[in-house]
């Protein structure tokens, strides 16, 4: 038996928000008479932490402590529209709606405070739950006092609404796929290196180490970003070497209906994961954030595939890289076919191998 080690690398990019945009999110805020803040948004928290992140955004945009925020995403009666928690949009798009709602509530808050203090609202700031006149901090009053005055003195409700929508980028040329507007919001970038060990007798691949670097724009909560990145790494590992709904794809036979036969990554599959977070703030996300939730499982499969090649000298380009595929590849030791300057890999997998000849010609990517 021989165990072979190998390393591979990859670099990827991924857009934030729905492709072509056109996906609105909205939020609204009301401030209670003691200054505490209720945020209403329709963003589901699927574990990604959108309740937390949007509360943090509102706290800073308003200038109040985090624990003053109540976040309600519980139903469609009280919450305005959010397109949903997908497309890496919960922080970037929905978070921007929450930020705008907080800014609009802040404007209203300062308007009341201005009346109360007889100071131009433009000369007021809100910090840690207090309204502070610029240059005259001794005159500061609490947000609670302002909210109380709004309720009991001025007969006003301090609210704010916010909506975020980048217009839909239509394809204006079917020939080239050209669009009339940028079809994405901020693009995030990542690179990854993987180290594997391959048993050349059983074909078993163990991912031993992943190094990853993500440009997250700005980590609004570093711990939650880590959760996304590490979670994505494990799902990427699953894509690479474990998971398959159809073990004999394209056949539908032997599809697994149990955890015993569908190989979701388990705790014992966990490799060493080292991650570097870099922050190049986005121009248009809340506080410079980008959305990296989804891309977190994209860089591992190509890095692991290259690492397997580095270990045993064969390319396995059907995922997952199961022990069976490793043994079949080692047995075939396929070499690319060379035709002049053209190097053709994987002919045995190609459409041309399976389709009728005239179909194959139509779909040929060959020069």
């Amino acid at each position, binding site marked *: 038996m021989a165990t072979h080690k190998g*390393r*591979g*690398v*990859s*670099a*990827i*990019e991924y*857009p934030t928000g729905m492709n*072509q945009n*056109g996906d609105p999110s909205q939020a609204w805020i009301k401030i209670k008479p003691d200054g505490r803040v209720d945020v209403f948004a329709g963003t*589901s928290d*699927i574990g990604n*932490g959108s*309740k937390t992140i949007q509360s943090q955004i509102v706290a*800073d945009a308003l200038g109040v402590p985090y624990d003053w925020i109540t976040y309600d995403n*519980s139903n*469609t009666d009280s919450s305005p*529209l959010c*397109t*949903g*928690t997908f497309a890496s949009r919960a922080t970037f798009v929905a978070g921007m709606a929450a930020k705008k709602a907080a800014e609009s509530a802040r404007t209203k808050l300062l308007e009341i405070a201005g009346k109360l203090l007889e100071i131009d609202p433009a000369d007021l700031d809100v910090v840690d739950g207090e309204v502070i006149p610029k240059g005259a901090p001794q005159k500061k009053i609490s947000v609670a006092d302002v909210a109380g005055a709004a309720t009991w003195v001025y007969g006003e409700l301090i609210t704010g609404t916010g909506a975020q929508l980048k217009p839909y980028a239509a*394809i204006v040329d*079917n020939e080239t*796929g050209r*669009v009339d507007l940028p*079809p994405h919001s901020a*693009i995030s970038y990542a690179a990854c*290196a993987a180290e594997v060990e391959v048993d050349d007798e059983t074909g078993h691949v163990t991912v031993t180490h992943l190094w*990853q*670097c993500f440009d997250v724009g700005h980590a609004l*909560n570093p711990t*939650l970003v880590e959760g996304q990145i590490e979670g994505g790494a494990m799902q990427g590992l699953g*894509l690479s070497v474990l*998971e*398959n*709904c*159809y073990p004999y794809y*394209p056949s539908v036979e032997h*599809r697994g209906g149990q*955890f015993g036969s569908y190989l979701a990554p388990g705790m014992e599959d966990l490799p060493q994961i080292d991650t*570097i977070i870099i922050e*190049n703030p986005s121009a248009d996300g809340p506080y410079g954030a980008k959305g990296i*939730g989804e891309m977190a499982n994209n860089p591992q*499969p*190509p890095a692991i*595939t290259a690492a397997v090649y580095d270990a045993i000298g064969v*390319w396995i380009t059907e*995922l*997952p890289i199961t022990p069976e595929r490793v043994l079949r590849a080692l047995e075939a030791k396929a070499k690319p076919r060379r035709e002049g300057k*053209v*190097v053709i*890999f994987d*002919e045995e997998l190609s*459409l041309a191998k399976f*389709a009728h000849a005239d*179909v194959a010609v139509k*779909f040929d*990517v*060959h*020069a």
Partner: protein
Amino acid sequence: MKAVGARLPRYDGIAHVTGRSTYVDDVRIPGTLWVKALRSPHHNAAITKLDTSPAEKLKGVHAVVTAADVPLLVYGHLSALGIPGDEPLLADGEVRYQGQPIAVVAAESEELAMAAVEAIRIEYEERPALFDIRKAFDPDAPVIHEWGNWYPHFEGELDRRQIRKGDIEWAFDKADTIVQGVYRPAAIEHVPLETQVCQVVPEADGRLTIYSCTQALYFSLGVVCAHLQLPLNKVKVVGGTVGGGFGGKVDTATETMCALLAQKSGRPVKWRWTREEEFLCSSTRAPWHMEIADAVTKDGWILGRKMLTLHDSGAYARFSPYGLTKHSFHHAGAYTIPNIHFDGYVVFTNRVPTTAMRGFGVTSVSFAVETHLSRIAVELGIDPFELRLKNANRIGDTTPNGVVLTDPSTVPTIQAIADAIGHELTAEYRTTTRDTRSGAFLPDHLVSQLGNPEEH
């Protein structure tokens, strides 16, 4: 203290660790009926007989719903994006995948609901099925979808998503080497620990309250109201706390059927999918078939890329046309490739419809193009880091469909990984930045590709 940037604990963290977060299955509603579905055992078949009356006659069975009960049976979930509908809420005269729901029942207990499903009389006439997308275009392939075997409605009229840029013929002529490869990532289950689950309560005022594990409350609201032909104020979707989604809970898989059963029975209903239903009947990440031919120079410049993508959509379109378009926009990866020829097809097969999953459309293409780059590096004998850094997107580079990039980070992320694993880069690559191309990083063939970020 600034909240943004701080390592604050989760808003719902204490609720999570004390078991007090309320997921849909945890909502207790007295008098709730259990829901179960009759699902197709066949991959492709005509339904020649369907008689639900034996189930309806069982004591304790309060409602059975079939296609005939749905006010709007077919609703295009992405009709706003010009993607028409093809999938009936419940099978109507034919089934196109194993596990497709045909009828749903609501009964006093889970056992009784299972018995009611078994009591429904149904007969099928099996048809030949199609599973291999590489054979879908063949003249003798069985035609398995009303639109043919591949989606024909891109921008209302195209049967493929097409991207063209520059002069692909020039790139392939000029290339020193052309490297071709085929890439096939698999279908993946989302496997949220919380399976699909829904409860619907018919309220006294005629409204429906839907407790949903959806990732998109308003999206589900819109889908339910469309099928039921109700204004948005007649339905309240309650949710927001979800036991994992990963894209699979954008499908509105249970809500509409439960709403119809609640309406028909006048009772609260609950449907919690078993893990087997989740594994075998819920949508998956799509399998993809990608063929790439890259025209490269011997010193590692990628002059052009030809790419063919087949996206295995399963039996219906769902979000696949959207996913393929996103895929096409990103098929150059994190690099500038001046000459592009991309054709992509959404292909139907008789498997469970595929849907969005983390990285939708791009996970596949990242795997394909990055593995391809690793192969090119080996083929040319070039360091894989340096091959990437050479072609890496820079400020002012343009995407396959011509959009100018303003803040790409490919260069710093690759450099950071090289540092992390102790991979020595030459000075040229160690010191290069993401700034606008110049010098050795601006060969003649890229000059005309640069756009002005200021105009972006």
